[in-house]
């Protein structure tokens, strides 16, 4: 049984704005019966170009119906530019959260909204050149890229929860993994502000604690942070690592790579005598 919030239940049991707007200004249908959920969104603008009426028809589970209902409530009174700023996270937050496996319902809401606005403006709904990655659910590389970017996703499973991509035959898992890597590689320089020395040291400590020590301990080794001097990270190896002939390799290819990846690309790891 899914753990739905009271607000999700309320919007499922008492959905707002079910139906079709008469003579709508914008209309869109996203999803398909084969995929298990589909949403038809219609809206009308007033003389100030604000959304005065929005209605939905949804085929899908309780959370698909609840997110559709929430979406129509949220965008009422907004200009189209304001409405375009609504993210799938906003829709989920409006409902007090959704189970991870149901986040794709909020993504469907966001897609319907964009498509309906594009329909009104006469622009193509999907960016040109998008390629289908997931054949089972018809999800494109652009859809996946955006979900990864906007929701900071890191695993294929998360991408499936948010977009459904990869939830069928599973043949596209590698392709999804590559998209995640690509998007995260782009995002890094922008997402990482310049660190003060104290922040850097703290982040290095946390990264060693969280990302590095568990793997080393798994093989009977361990590592200790001794000091950080500029970009030099001074460490001492312990346990199996201290006597391991390959520990230099471990430091360069695992510890340094991890720290460069997660903290700063200029870091150099050096071993000091214990």
């Amino acid at each position, binding site marked *: 049984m*899914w753990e739905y919030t009271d607000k999700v239940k309320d919007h*499922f*049991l008492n*959905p707002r704005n*079910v139906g079709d707007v008469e003579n709508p200004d914008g209309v869109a*249908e996203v999803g398909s*019966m*084969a995929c*298990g*959920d*589909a*949403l*038809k969104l219609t809206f009308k603008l007033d003389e100030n170009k604000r959304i005065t009426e929005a209605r939905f*028809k*949804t*085929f*899908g*589970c*309780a959370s*698909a*119906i609840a997110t559709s209902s929430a979406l129509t409530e949220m965008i009422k009174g907004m200009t189209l530019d304001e409405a375009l700023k609504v993210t799938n996270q906003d829709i989920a937050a409006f409902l007090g959260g959704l189970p991870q*496996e149901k986040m794709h319902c909020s993504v469907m809401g966001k897609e319907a909204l964009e498509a309906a606005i594009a329909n009104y403006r006469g622009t193509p709904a999907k960016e040109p050149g998008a390629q289908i990655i997931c054949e*089972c*659910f018809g999800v494109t590389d652009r859809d996946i890229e955006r979900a990864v970017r906007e929701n900071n996703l890191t695993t294929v499973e998360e991408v*499936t929860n948010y977009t*459904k991509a990869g*939830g*069928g035959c599973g043949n596209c898992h590698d392709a999804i993994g590559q998209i995640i890597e690509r998007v995260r590689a782009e995002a890094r320089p922008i997402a990482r502000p310049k660190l003060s020395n104290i922040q850097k040291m703290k982040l290095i400590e946390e990264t060693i604690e969280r990302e590095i020590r568990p793997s080393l301990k798994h093989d009977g080794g361990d590592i200790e942070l001794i000091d950080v001097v500029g970009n030099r990270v001074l460490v001492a190896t312990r346990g199996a690592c201290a006597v391991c002939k390959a520990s230099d390799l471990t430091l360069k290819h695992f510890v340094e790579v991890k720290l460069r990846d997660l903290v700063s690309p200029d870091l150099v790891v050096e071993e000091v005598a214990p």
Partner: protein
Amino acid sequence: MKTIYLDNNATTQVAVEVMEAMLPYFRDFYGNPSSMHSFGGQVGRKLWEAREQMAALIGATPDEIVFTSCGTESDNAAILSALAINPDRRHIVTSRVEHPAVRALCAHLAVQGCRVTELPVDKEGLLDLDQYEKSLTPDTAIVSLMWANNESGVLFPVEKAAELAHDRGILFHTDAVQAVGKIPISMQANAIDMLSLSGHKLHAPKGIGVLYVRRGTKFSPFLIGGHQEKGRRGGTENSPAIIGLGKACVLAAQHMERENTTVKQLRDKLERELLTRIPKSRVNGNVANRLPNTTNISFEFVEGEGILLLMDEHGICASSGSACTSGSLQPSHVLRAMGVPFTMAHGSIRFSLSIYNTEAEIDFVIDKLPPIIERLRSMSPYWLPGEEACARA
């Protein structure tokens, strides 16, 4: 709110008589049945009685009964045993509609190098015996086919299939978790080598299962440990649950006729009335050849989770083969194997009854479900009022 429980293929209520039979073995007679003292020994004698009761329900002898922890363990034990005692055979024949306890295990074994043939079913969920026969090879270690399907209730001709396997010297296992207690089974009258069943599907508690192993069948244990179950399954016996299962077997034998008359009539009434009252609905699976307690009905253009949650508001318990309830984003593998169209598969509901259901409960569901479907359809972009008119005309 009263609970109307129509999800007995998922699990059943523990019968009051079963509960009472078990309680002393939690409270007072907690001895280990393997102990030398009479305090433990008396439990051992009671376990033997339960073993006899279990054997009687399926026409077996007590020494052919191996108690396990659940149906899944029994399935795993059977298939892995067959591979262990036939080290030169690496082929498994099974079907596309098996329970995950068999299906996921076979998928796992396929990764480890076994060759697995998953036989298809037709649109009514039936097996093609000719195709089955052709799939048997000298390399086949075991056939595992379920007796009754948990989602559709459709029965496989396992007795005939077991003979065909035997003719070729191949072991035959059946997952009879849904069949035991609902239809008559006599192991004396068939050639099946191993059969799995689960206590909690027949009003015994969860945590107790059985693997029937035909006398003379070579067996390699799954749980290796003590001498329990004649070395066929290590681990101290779950005595209260075994005693409860024994009692449940006695009750199941007594209730077998009611299961196939009263329960069947209630199931038929539920099905007939829902199909009449709700346009664009249909039954999944062959109606003539299925369990007496199960019906799987699809309501077109709506999604199962919504139906379940709205029924839940009335205390009605059932289950669905829709994607949103399967946890996998795709509708149930059983419905897909049967080629049920997506428009139907997502809106499928399985009702499974027991002897504890009453006609008043069935009438309540017949009354409550049509407006639920109508309400969800009114929200569905695929439902056009015209279609309803057509369907009714």
